[in-house]
């Protein structure tokens, strides 16, 4: 029923709080006033529009003046709403001195249907979350079992491999009594065993890191001298392929807190990859510079480079871009995955830029201020 006088308390209630559309139109159908609910619900703001413009696919012609004169009530029609969804209201029309008052009540059935749909959707989402979390936990358990197995297998295999290497060395010491063919066989045994040992060490490292046992031992070090030392060690290896390693320190680098054993592993890995995938008589350049609150080490080679479609994979475990280096050097496919985790563990970043046939540049950063 229409309120007899829309003033004082009723007018304030209608304008401020009522959950129904109230519109005051002139006799031509132009909207002069709209209450807060109408403004919050309808899209766009209805004031100034013609009454027919607020409807979705307005097929039913309603002349508000005529509707008011005929005292039409509860006429269903869908309006455009701010939620970008049409919503059905039941419109009633009343003639007033200045024009026409229009009241739109929400469809009770529609509200209930929406409410029910919302509850069902919420339940469904909640149940899917449960199932996802359950599946995730299963995967986590399987991953833990895999890491445990890797760790155990690598640990248990390490001792017999060590024995093979040691006894190969003993026999090699007796080289005088060996034929050339026997020496070659022993050399193959030793090289293969060393590769297996490296693979097992990487597996052990990887399984420890995966199990959340990275265990960084941070201490303050002169980072420049540290990098110089690691570069010097790798220069000896580089010399075998006639590769020169050049270190450039571009600015004053502060002392840093880092795990020197782990970061040496990082730098050794990146440098050995650079050497492995470089051709003879090329150069590897190592640059050190500040990047805001981080120190960046850049390792640039002139090697074979990384295909574009493989760049995103190289920090994933067991994804080698090339099985062998330019002179048959082998790699385990785990090195960069381990390196990445060590750098992230220091709250640094690692990334690569590469162009196939031209070379690769690896970057890794360490923070000036380490946080536990």
């Amino acid at each position, binding site marked *: 029923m229409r309120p007899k006088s829309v003033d004082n308390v009723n007018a304030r209630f209608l304008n401020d709080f009522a959950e129904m559309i109230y519109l005051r139109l002139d006799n031509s159908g132009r909207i002069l006033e709209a209450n807060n609910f109408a403004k919050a619900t309808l899209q766009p703001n209805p004031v100034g529009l013609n009454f027919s413009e607020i409807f979705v696919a307005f097929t039913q012609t309603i002349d508000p003046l005529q509707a008011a004169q005929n005292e039409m009530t509860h006429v269903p029609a869908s309006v455009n709403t701010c939620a970008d969804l049409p919503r059905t209201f039941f419109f009633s029309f009343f003639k007033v001195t200045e024009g026409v008052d229009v009241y739109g009540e929400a469809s009770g059935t529609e509200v209930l249907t929406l409410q029910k749909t919302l*509850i*069902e959707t919420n339940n469904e989402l*909640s149940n899917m979350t*449960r199932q996802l979390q*359950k599946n995730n936990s299963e995967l986590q358990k399987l991953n833990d079992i895999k890491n445990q197995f890797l760790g155990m297998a690598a640990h248990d295999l390490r001792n017999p491999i060590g024995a093979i290497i040691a006894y190969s060395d003993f026999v090699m010491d007796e080289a005088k009594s060996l034929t050339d063919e026997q020496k070659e066989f022993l050399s193959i045994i030793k090289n293969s065993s060393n590769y297996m040992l490296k693979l097992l060490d990487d597996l052990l490292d990887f399984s420890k890191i995966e199990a959340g046992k990275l265990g960084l031992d941070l201490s303050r070090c002169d980072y420049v001298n540290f990098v110089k030392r690691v570069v010097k060690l790798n220069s000896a290896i580089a010399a075998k392929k006639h590769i020169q390693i050049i270190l450039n320190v571009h600015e004053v680098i502060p002392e840093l807190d880092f795990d020197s054993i782990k970061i040496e592993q990082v730098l050794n890995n990146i440098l050995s990859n650079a050497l492995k995938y470089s051709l003879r008589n090329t150069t590897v350049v190592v640059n050190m510079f500040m990047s805001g609150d981080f120190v960046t080490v850049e390792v640039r080679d002139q090697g074979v480079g990384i295909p574009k479609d493989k760049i995103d994979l190289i920090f994933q475990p067991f994804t080698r871009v090339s099985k062998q280096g330019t002179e048959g050097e082998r790699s385990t496919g785990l090195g960069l995955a381990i390196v990445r985790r060590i750098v992230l563990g220091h709250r640094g970043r690692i990334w690569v830029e590469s162009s196939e046939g031209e070379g690769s540049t690896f970057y890794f950063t360490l923070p000036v201020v380490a946080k536990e």
Partner: protein
Amino acid sequence: MESDLYDSYFQSLVAGDRRACRQIILGLLETDIDIKTLYLSYFQKSLYAIGDLWAANKITVAVEHMATAITESLFPLVYPRIFMADHCGKKAVISCTANEYHQIGGKMVADVLELNGWDTIFLGANTPLQSLLDFIDTNQPDMVGLSLSLQDNMPNLLTAIGKIRDRHPELSIIVGGQAFSFAASEVLKPTEHVHLIRSFSELEGYIQADAYAT
């Protein structure tokens, strides 16, 4: 004080303050609260109290729905602890019957089974009977649990039990839920191998009984 914390949780729930509820539950989980205690002393207790307020016309149904939605949103906080238990090799399907929209009780039962090493599949609210039957056929669980909150849905429950029994005469069926607070367990008399479970301890006692020893 535990009761102060519960009061604070309850007030936040009624006020629709999801963040406050979340903080309280996270705090409780940090203190290593027993999951069953959390479910009973916070989730169940608060929702029952809200149901009472609604029945007394002191809150609207919208507030009740909001409280339920907030509670639903808190379950994932608990899951990392629920799903890490080792499996005992038993599987259960837990579901609500058709037209039954109150699913939180059933979900808590499924979670307690998980804590006991069971692999549970929770089908949720308003599961059509045919879907439930097909699901049981496909997954061959060791047990089916049906949750019932509203007594009006009792005929649906009895029909579901009958149909499950026709297909799987030996399959163990458990039922529970607020509907049985008012209904005498006699309603289940015509059914066989159906066990009314009134509490988590009853549930654990039942699954640990000889019939379910692994």
